[in-house]
C-alpha cells in the first residue's frame, strides 16, 4: 500500500505504508544513529514526533522487547528509506513492521530520507502528516500543520504511579520521570542504588518526605517551558540539600528553575555521534543525544558550564555553584548509542558519599 508524507512546506513524499494503517500528525525530526531503532521508537522524548532515520536500512536485526526503553512506542511515525523484513539476530522476537503494528504506529518506507533530512537541515524542524489515503487534501493538511505544536507531552508520557527498583541497603535515589528511558533507572539500579520512580507531577514535598540520598531528573519530551508545575517543584528540590543529577529535559528544567532560559534549535541534536567536551577533564566523549531545545543565558553566579558540544558550542552540561547538583544535555544512559559517559552515574554516587555495599 502506498503512503504519503506531506510536509508543512507543501512537499509530498510517496512511499510504502509500514506498520499501522492510520493517519498521523507529527513534528518531523531526523536521527543519525546507525543502530538502535527499537530504543529510538520507545524513547518517550520522541512523543509527538515523526522520526526519520538517516541510516538507509531499518529492520536488519528485528526487534526484541527487552531492548525497549519504555512501556510502548512513543513516536508518532517512523520514516525510513528501506524497511527489511530480513531480521537476523539471535534475540529477534518480531519484525520492525510487526512491532509498529503492535503499538498501532504508522510508518513509511521507500522515501528519499536524505533529501528530507537536507530539507529539515535547511528549513528547520517542521510539521508532517502521514496518510495512506491517496485522496488527501493537501491544502487542508498543510494549513493544519502550520499550527501544529506538541502539547502536554510530559503529562502524556510519565507513568501513573510510583515504582521501586529495590536494592536494600543501597542509597535511595528518587527518579523524577518526566519521560524517562528505562536505562536511566537500570543504570542506577545496576550500581546498587535503591531507585524509586515518581510520576512527573509528584510534589517536591512528597519526594523529599521519602528522604532520598539523591534525586535524578530524567529526560523527556516537548518544550521545557511548558512544564510550569514541574519547574516549580524542581526549584524546591534545588533548595533542598539533596544531590541532584539531571539528564536532557531534566537538565533544561533545572536550568529554567534557577533562572536560565532555553531556546529551540533549528533542527536539534539526534544521534549517537555527538562530541561533547568535559571541560574539567579536557577530554571529548561521544554521546547519544536527542533534544530540540538547549539551555542558554546562564547566570554565572548560579551555575557554570561543565560540558560543551564540540560541533556547535552549545551547552551540554552545568554544575551548580555551592550545590551538589550537575546536569547534562546528552544521554549517559545511552541506549541507543555510546556508553562513553556512563562514568557520570558513578560521579552521582560519589556525590552521595561514595559507593555503598561495595
Amino acid at each position, binding site marked *: 500500500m502506498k503512503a504519503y508524507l506531506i510536509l508543512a512546506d507543501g512537499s509530498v513524499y510517496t512511499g510504502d505504508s509500514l506498520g499501522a494503517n492510520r493517519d498521523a500528525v507529527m513534528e518531523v525530526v*531526523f536521527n*543519525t*544513529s*546507525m*543502530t*538502535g531503532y*527499537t*530504543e529510538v521508537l520507545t524513547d518517550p522524548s520522541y512523543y509527538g514526533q515523526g522520526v526519520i532515520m*538517516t*541510516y*538507509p*536500512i531499518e529492520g*536488519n*536485526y528485528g526487534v*526484541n522487547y527487552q*531492548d525497549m526503553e519504555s512501556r510502548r512506542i512513543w513516536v508518532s511515525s517512523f520514516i525510513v*528509506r*528501506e524497511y*527489511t523484513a*530480513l531480521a*537476523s*539476530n*539471535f*534475540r529477534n522476537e518480531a519484525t520492525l513492521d510487526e512491532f509498529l503494528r503492535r503499538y498501532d504506529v504508522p510508518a513509511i518506507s*521507500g522515501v*528519499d*530520507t*536524505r*533529501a528530507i*533530512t*537536507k530539507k529539515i*537541515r535547511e528549513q528547520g524542524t517542521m510539521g508532517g502528516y502521514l496518510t495512506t489515503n491517496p485522496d488527501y487534501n493537501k491544502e487542508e493538511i498543510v494549513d493544519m500543520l502550520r499550527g501544529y505544536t506538541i502539547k502536554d507531552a510530559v503529562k502524556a508520557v510519565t507513568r501513573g504511579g510510583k515504582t521501586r527498583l529495590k536494592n536494600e541497603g543501597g542509597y535511595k535515589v528518587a527518579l523524577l520521570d518526566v519521560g524517562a528511558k528505562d536505562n536511566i533507572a537500570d543504570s542506577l539500579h545496576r550500581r546498587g542504588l535503591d531507585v524509586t520512580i515518581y510520576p512527573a507531577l509528584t510534589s517536591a514535598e512528597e519526594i523529599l518526605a521519602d528522604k532520598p540520598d539523591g534525586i535524578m531528573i530524567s529526560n523527556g519530551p516537548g518544550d521545557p517551558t511548558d512544564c510550569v508545575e514541574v519547574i516549580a517543584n524542581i526549584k524546591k528540590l534545588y533548595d533542598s540539600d539533596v544531590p541532584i543529577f539531571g539528564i536532557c529535559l531534566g537538565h533544561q528544567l533545572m536550568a529554567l528553575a534557577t533562572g536560565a532560559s532555553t531556546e529551540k534549535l533549528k533542527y536539534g541534536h539526534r*544521534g*549517537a*555521534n*555527538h*562530541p561533547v*567536551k568535559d571541560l574539567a577533564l*579536557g*577530554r*571529548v*566523549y*561521544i554521546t547519544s543525544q536527542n533534544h530540540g531545545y538547549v539551555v542558554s543565558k546562564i547566570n554565572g553566579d548560579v551555575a557554570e558550564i561543565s560540558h560543551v558540544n*564540540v*560541533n556547535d558550542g552549545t551547552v551540554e552540561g552545568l554544575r551548580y555553584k555551592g550545590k551538589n547538583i550537575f546536569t547534562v544535555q546528552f544521554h549517559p544512559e*545511552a*541506549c*541507543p*548509542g*555510546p*556508553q*562513553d559517559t556512563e562514568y557520570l552515574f558513578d560521579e552521582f554516587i560519589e556525590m552521595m558519599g561514595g559507593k555503598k555495599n561495595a
Partner: protein
Amino acid sequence: MPKSPDIKKVLVIGSGPIIIGQAAEFDYAGTQACRSLKDDGVEVVLINSNPATIMTDKDIADKVYIEPLTTETVEKVIMAEKPDSILPTLGGQTGLNLAMELAEAGFLKEHNVKLLGTSSETIKMAEDRQSFKDAMLSIGQPCIASKVVETYADALAFAKEIGFPVIVRPAYTLGGTGGGIAENEEELAQIAPHGLRLSRVGQVLIEKCIAGWKEIEFEVIRDGAGSCITVCSMENLDPVGVHTGDSIVVAPAQTLADKEYQMLRTAALKIINKLKVEGGCNVQFALEPNSFEYAVIEVNPRVSRSSALASKATGYPIAKVAAKIALGYHLDEIKNAVTGKTFACFEPALDYIVAKIPKWPFDKFVTAERKLGTQMKATGEVMSINPTFEGALMKAVRSLELNIYSLDLPAYRDMDADALRQELKKVDDMRLFVVAQSLKKGISVDEINEITKIDKWFLGKIDNIMKLEETLRTGELTPELLEKAKIYGFYDKVIGDLVGKTDREIRALRLQWNILPAYKMVDTCAAEFEAVTPYYYSCYGSETEADPASDRKKILVLGSGPIRIGQGIEFDYCSVHAVWALSKLGYETIIVNNNPETVSTDFDISDKLYFEPLTPEDVENIVDVEQPYGAIVQFGGQTAIKLTKALNDMGVRILGTDARDVDRAEDRELFDEVLEICKIRRPQGRTIFTCEEAIAAANEIGYPVLVRPSYVLGGQGMEIAYNDTDITIYMEIINRSVQEHPILVDKYVLGKEVEVDAVCDGTDILIPGIMEHLERAGIHSGDSISVYPAQTLTQEEKDTIIRFTKSLATELNVVGLINIQFIVASDGVYVIEVNPRSSRTVPYISKVTNVPIVALAIRCMLGERLKDLGYGVGLHPEADYVAVKMPVFSFEKLHDVDTALGPEMKSTGEVLGIAPTFHEALYKSFIASGFVIPERGNMLITVRDTDKEEVCRLAKDFDDYGFGIYATGGTCEYLRKNGIHARRVNKIAEGAPDILDFISAGGVDLVVNTPTRGRQHNRDGFKIRRTSVERSVPCMTSLDTARALLTAIKQKDEGELGIVDISTI
C-alpha cells in the same frame, strides 16, 4: 593543545613495494600524512623503496630517499638529515617494524629522535602475542585460547590440549603470511614450521579456531588527551576463518543490534585506551552469532588497509588526523575538512552502505590454490557505495573487471542442487557466486547458513537479487520493475539480457521513463551538516545532489580500478599527476575510480570524485550529468583505455591520441601497416582465433613462438610455446575466459629488451630516458630488472631507438604518452610492443630524470608544444645516477603458482636502487626487494638443456667466488666435464634424499632453475621452485638474473653504500 613546537623535521617511513597484504593503502596513508605534516610547516623527510608511489614525489616530501627499507639505510638517512622525530605508524608493518628495531637498539635515543604518535611500549604490547593477551586480560577483554610457541613440538602439544582445529598465526608478519588453519596434526606439521620460519621473532601463535563467528572490525582514533572515537564499524560477510583482506566487507556493521554494537564499540575504546595508542588503530573482534560472547582477534596499532577502507567509506581522513595527533593536536582542534565546520572528534554517520570485494590474482594465476584462509591472497580491492546492500554488492561485482556483471555465473548454471551443496563447502573466491546460484536453485537460506555460516541477513539480501533476476526473466518490464532493478544495482546489459533487449534499449527505456541515477554525497554526517567536498556515489529512486555548474572547462580523468598484477599503483600515480597538472592549467577535474586504497580516491585530490564502477554505463551516467569538455584515458591503464570506444560513442572528446590511432597500435594488422610505413621490423606474427589456426601459424613462423590474447595487461595468458602441445594447452587456458579480441602468435626473437616512454605533441617527441632490461627478451617487462640509463647500448643503437620512437609516435599521431618496447638483436632493432598510453615505468623515470612526464603529456594534449615547455625535445640528457628497478613478487602467499618468469607478468610490485654506479644501484635494488643476498654458500643448479653451455660460465664465476656448486644428474655431469667442481644431488625420481629434501633441509642458499615448459606442475622444476619459495631460498629462473645477483654479491665487498636524496636530482 596545539602542535608541539619541538617538532620541526619528521622522518616518515613508507611501506616499500606492493606485495600481497601491503598494497597501495600505505601510499594513500603516507601521502595524506606527508601533506598534512607539510601543512603544519614541518619539514618532511621520506624514505621508501617503492618508486611508483605518490609519496616519493618531491612535491609531497621535502627530502625523498628511494632507498632500501633496512635499518642500515634508515640509520644513514637519520644521520644525514638529523630529523627530530620519526613517524612510524603510517608505513604499514614494514615501517612499524623498522622503527621498532631502531628504538629497541637504542639508535633513536642516541640520535635524539622522538617516536611520534604511538610509543614503542604500545607497539610492543599490541604486537607481541603474549603481552597483548596479558593486557587484554587486565581490562577484562576476552581473547581466544591461545599460546605463543617457538617450536613445532610445543605447537603440537598445545594444539592437542585445546583440540583441533587450530589457527596458526606467525608474529610480526603482514597479511597473515605463513599462517593457516590446521584441521589435524598432519596439517599442523605443514603450517607451523613454515610460520616459525617467516616470523621475525621466530614465534607463532597457536589458537583455538573460532571459524564461523561473525567478524567485526572497528577503526578507532585516540589523541594525546585520551579522547577517542570510532570512525567506522565494518562487518565481514565471510565469517571468521577468512582473512579480512580476503573477505567481502560491508560498512557499517549490518547484523548487530545496538546492544551488541555498543558492547564491541566500548570494548574497542577500552582497548585503545589501555594501549594508549595516539593515532589510528584497528580492532578486530569475533562475535559468536547466538550470544553476546565475543573475543578480540587482533589489534593493529597503526594505520592499515582497513583504515584506508574506513576513510573512503566515511570521508573521514584517518591518516591525516593520525598525523596531526602525532604532532600534538587534539581531536577537537582538527577541522573536519569535509564539512569545513565540524571537528575530527565526532563519529561519522553513514546514510549508505559500503561494500568491499577483494581483487584476487586467480584470473592470472589460473593454477593457484583459490582456497581462502588466514593468509591473505588478494592484491587489491574495489569498493562501492549505495543506499541498498543489493546495489552496493552489484556495483562492487562489476567494478572487479572480471567481465562479470551479475551473480548468475555461467560456470554454475548447469550445476544441480547437490553439486552446489558440495561447492558451498569450498571457501574460495567464487563463494559469493556459488551462494547466489544455490539460492537460485532453491537451496534454503537456513541450509546455506548452516554450511557457510554466512549470516542469514546477507544471504537473504543475495536472495533478493536472484529473485529479482527471476522476475525480470519471467515478468513484464514495467517502469516500477525497471526502477527496482536499478535500485538493486543491476547493469543495463544484464537487465537487457534477462528481458531480451539490448543495453541501449534499456537505456532508452530508462530515459523515457525518467529512471535516472541520482548522485549523493559522502559527507561524514548523513546530511546533518552541509558538506563542501563533492564526493559522490550513484543510486536510483532519489534526488540528485550533483551540481554540474562550473565556470571552468571540465575534464574527466578515468582511474585504473583495483590493484592487480600488471596494473598497479603506477597508474594511480599517473592519474593523480594528471589531475594536478590539469588543475594547475585551470581546468575542473573529475575523477572516476573505485579503488579505496589509492590516493586518487581521496576527497581532496580532484575537484570532484565519483566513486563508481569503471564501466561504460556507469561512466556514461556521469557524462550525462557533468557534460565534460573532454576525457583522459591515457593514465588509467587498460581499465581506462578499454573505455575509449564507449566514450567516443557518447560523443566525449578524448584528449590526446585519437581512438583510431590507439586502435592502429593495438590491432595487429593495422599495426603491421604502421610498421610498414615506418620501415620498422617486428617479430613475425599472426592474428588467430582458434587452436588449429594457432598451430598452423606457429609452424609457418617457426618455433619458439609467443602466444597471447590482444588487449590485455601484464601479458595475461601469455606463454612461450616450443611445440604444438604447448599451444594446445595455452589456447585452452586463454579460452577459459571469454575472448572478444583475437589471439596473437609471434616469433620469439632473442635479444636485449629495451623500453622507452616518450611524450609527443604531434610533431616533436621527448624521451626522458632509455631503459634496458637486464634479462633478455622473453621475460615480461614488468618482471624484468630494468636499468636506466641503458648500460650496454651503442650510440648507433640508441639513435635507432630514438628514430623509431619518433617515427612511430608521428605515424600514430600520438599526442601525450607512448611506451615502446624494443628488442635489440644481433641483426638490428625490432619493435615488440607499442602502447600509446602511460606505462608502469613513468613514475620511476619521472623521478630519476626529473622530467614531469605526466604534466608534459597533459600540456601536449591540451595543445601546447614540447618546444615551449622547457624540457627540450629528443633524448633528455642522461642523469648522473643509475637507477635499477627490481620486481618484487608475492609467491610465498600463493600456493601452486609457478615462480618461473616468462612472458606473463607475475610481480606485484617494484623497488628502486639508485646510486652513482650501476653495480651499487643493482646491489641496492636487490636489498630493497627483500632479497637475502647470500654471501657465500651453496648454489643449486638445474637448467634446461639449451642453457647448459651458458650456465657453465655462470657456475664457474660463482665457484670462483666461493660458492659450493650442486647440480642434478645431467647438469652436474656437464659442469664437471667443463672443469667445475659440482656435487651431485638426486633428482626427485632417483629417491631420497632428493633435491627437495636437500632444499628443505636448509642445504641450499641459492637456486638457479630455468623452466623447461609452461604450466605443468608435476614436473620437477616446478617442485624445486615452489620448495625454494616456501623455504625462503632465493630461486633465479633466468641466467641473466643470476648473473646480476653475482654482480651484486661482489658489490657487497665494495664497502659502504651511499644514499641519494632524489629531490636534489
